[in-house]
């Protein structure tokens, strides 16, 4: 009996907990970028998903180049070494687009919706560039060791029917995401520049009055956002695979994460990322095997015991978004009020 419970727990960890932590970290990093742009530049950046694809693309190109030189990181994916290429490319993209596009509207003090439409233009260009350079196809660029824990070894070690496997990319995603978040929060809370960013986001006029240089704040924000964009994109691509259209579609869960957590609030973006990821996975998971372990034999379920098929995963993030907007419009952690 107790073994059944253990098996059920292993199933939950294997199919919900571990993938949820990895996917949640990726969403959280993406949502952090969205929320920072919103907090400092005050608009919803529709080009975010495609910028992620842009940064990832340069990492992939760098990875291919490094592999052709025979460089590798042993058990870790080579893409980690190539990550700086992606980060620099994404930062440059953000800064150039800011200079060419957004700066004008900032000077004009345009309405947020004008920024959003401009970001749609940036989205078209970025998307076109990615497809032009690397093509619209699916590609996987992960190498090195595939697993940290293999299901078969886990079963042998603990003598259970069910195995737990943790992919290298899942472990890496989680660790890197935690490091990035820690660095970001340290930067925002402890450094003078971070404090000036928060001040600018909180009250622009007051910040200007106390001598904060707005251009510098905007510059720093895009640098951070560019780095987050590239890291989130590369981690997602390593864990699943790289396809420009999938990155565009990530826009919805990332926005949902940022809004659910409270848009403009970095801590909220992290919370929102995990909320969205876990609900998406938990609602589209088929619980049949899990219930077979837990229920007495005569109650064994016939169906898959799946609330929604995985095709409807967008519906999950959307429903959570709507529920939060109706009952708690400022998000779970209080974000910028409406």
């Amino acid at each position, binding site marked *: 009996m107790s073994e059944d419970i253990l098996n059920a727990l292993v199933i939950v960890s294997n199919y919900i907990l571990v993938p949820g932590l990895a996917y949640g970290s990726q969403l959280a990093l993406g949502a952090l970028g969205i929320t920072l742009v919103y907090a400092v530049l005050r608009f919803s950046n529709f080009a975010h998903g495609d910028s992620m694809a842009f940064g990832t693309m340069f990492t992939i190109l760098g990875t291919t180049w490094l592999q052709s030189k025979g460089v590798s990181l042993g058990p870790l994916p080579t893409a980690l070494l190539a990550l700086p290429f992606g980060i620099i490319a994404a930062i440059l993209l953000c800064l150039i687009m800011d200079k060419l596009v957004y700066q004008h509207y900032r000077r004009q003090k345009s309405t*947020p*919706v004008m920024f959003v*439409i401009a970001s749609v233009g940036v989205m*078209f260009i970025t998307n076109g560039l990615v497809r032009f350079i690397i093509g619209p196809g699916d590609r996987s660029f992960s190498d090195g060791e595939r697993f940290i824990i293999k299901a078969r070894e886990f079963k042998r070690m603990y003598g259970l029917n069910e195995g737990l496997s943790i992919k290298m990319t899942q472990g890496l995603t989680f660790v890197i995401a935690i490091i990035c978040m820690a660095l970001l929060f340290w930067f925002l809370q402890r450094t003078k520049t971070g404090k000036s960013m928060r001040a600018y986001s909180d009250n622009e006029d007051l910040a200007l009055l106390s001598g904060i240089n707005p251009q510098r704040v905007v510059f720093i924000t895009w640098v951070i956002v560019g780095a987050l964009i590239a890291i989130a994109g590369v981690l997602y691509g390593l864990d699943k695979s790289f396809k420009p259209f999938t990155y565009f579609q990530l826009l919805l869960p990332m926005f949902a994460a940022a809004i659910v957590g409270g848009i403009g609030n970095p801590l909220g973006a992290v919370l929102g990322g995990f909320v969205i990821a876990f609900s998406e996975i938990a609602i589209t998971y088929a619980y049949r095997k899990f219930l077979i372990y837990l229920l007495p034999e005569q109650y064994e379920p016939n169906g898959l015991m799946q609330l929604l098929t995985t095709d409807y995963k967008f519906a999950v993030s959307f429903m959570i978004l709507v529920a939060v907007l109706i009952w708690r419009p400022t998000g779970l952690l209080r974000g910028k009020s409406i």
Partner: protein
Amino acid sequence: MGANVKTILTFGIMAVMLSAVGIMQSWSLALAITNMCLISAVMALGVNIQWGYAGLFNVGIMGFTALGGVAAVLVSVSPVGGAWQAGGLGILASLAIALATIATIVFIRSKLPPSRSRSWILFFVFVAGIAIVRWQYAPAVLAIEKFEPAQTGFLGGLGLPIIFSWFVGGLFAAGAAWLIGKIALGLRSDYLAIATLGISEIIIAMIKNEDWLTRGVKNVSGLSRPVPYEVNLQSSPWFHDLVEKVGGSSLPTETLARQQALQQMVIESSSIFVKLCYTGLFVIVLCLLLWLAHRAQKAPWGRMMRGIRDNEDAANAMGKNVTKRHLQVFVLGSAVVGIAGAMMTTLDGQFTPGTYQPLRYTFLVWVMVIVGGSGNNLGSVLGAFIIWFFWIEAEPLGQWFISFITSGMAADSALKLHLIESAAHMRLIFMGVILLMVLRFSPHGLLPEQIRR
């Protein structure tokens, strides 16, 4: 008056460009582009009604377009008797139970005062309703999808002429818009954008996966047409006579050669004739909608909408119910988009849910509206013509551009081959650049809104 001259001039240039395609490439292509331009114009009109009149930022155009396509299928395909027998009753029953559940929830909400116990009762009714619906729905769907899955596997439609679907498509989109508007219209502009983006993805996911309704990704092809078929035209004597009367002078005089040349000409003109029939139908719909939209904009209703758009608080203070007006204009605009969606599926002759992509069906329409001039109906029509024209013609243009750049490279250079291969993706970059240029240097579009005082 300057504005009128500009309108005539820009539309004239557009006509010249389309004719140039006709002369330099082929008239069949020129008409094909024109037809899609007309459909895009209806879509852009719908978006302009929402954005230009009322300032609503809807990025769920794709979903409403697809709903129009669903209408085309459900109206025109003949009903599949076997599938109805297999699971029609179950589907109807689950639909009835779903409606009854909603009615119960609405009834309880209106009768009981808000309290914790009411929330629990509502929650319980909701969960029980879903459970009963699924109990009826799942076996019915299985039975329907098992019925001749290679040919049908869905319930089919009503078997009516497809032209009715243009109206029904508008109704479908309006119904969906009402539901969505009830949930999302209270939100701030960028939240509305995210919400509509999500809903359009959900609509597409449903169409792709609910095979019993629309065959999903298995597609429905061979939809009936509102216009004659080429084969029938080629075998009908009156069409031969017509072709001979119009183009007879250019034919050779010798009998045998004349016969052959005429036969060739009949085949070519039959496809042009069919496209012209579509063009005629689309022009009628576009003109009708334009006239209605124009009347609405000029009427007090249009002035009220502009008032709400420009200053919500002031309009509210004047006693205008902003949320209600927003809902109204959201429904109207979405209905127009739904009509366009049904028209497009009619023109294609098939419904392929896999081809709906937000970049093409949502954001491209937005580029049309912004480039043409938001708030100006003729402007959005012009924008639709220009943008669709370039969307199609960007491919040859991009090829030309790339071969120009790469002309100095070696013929077998990998870079050159890659560039030529991906030239098709240049059009996305073109579109982005056009949008940003117009937004920056002519933010009111090519034909700006004309405010009548």
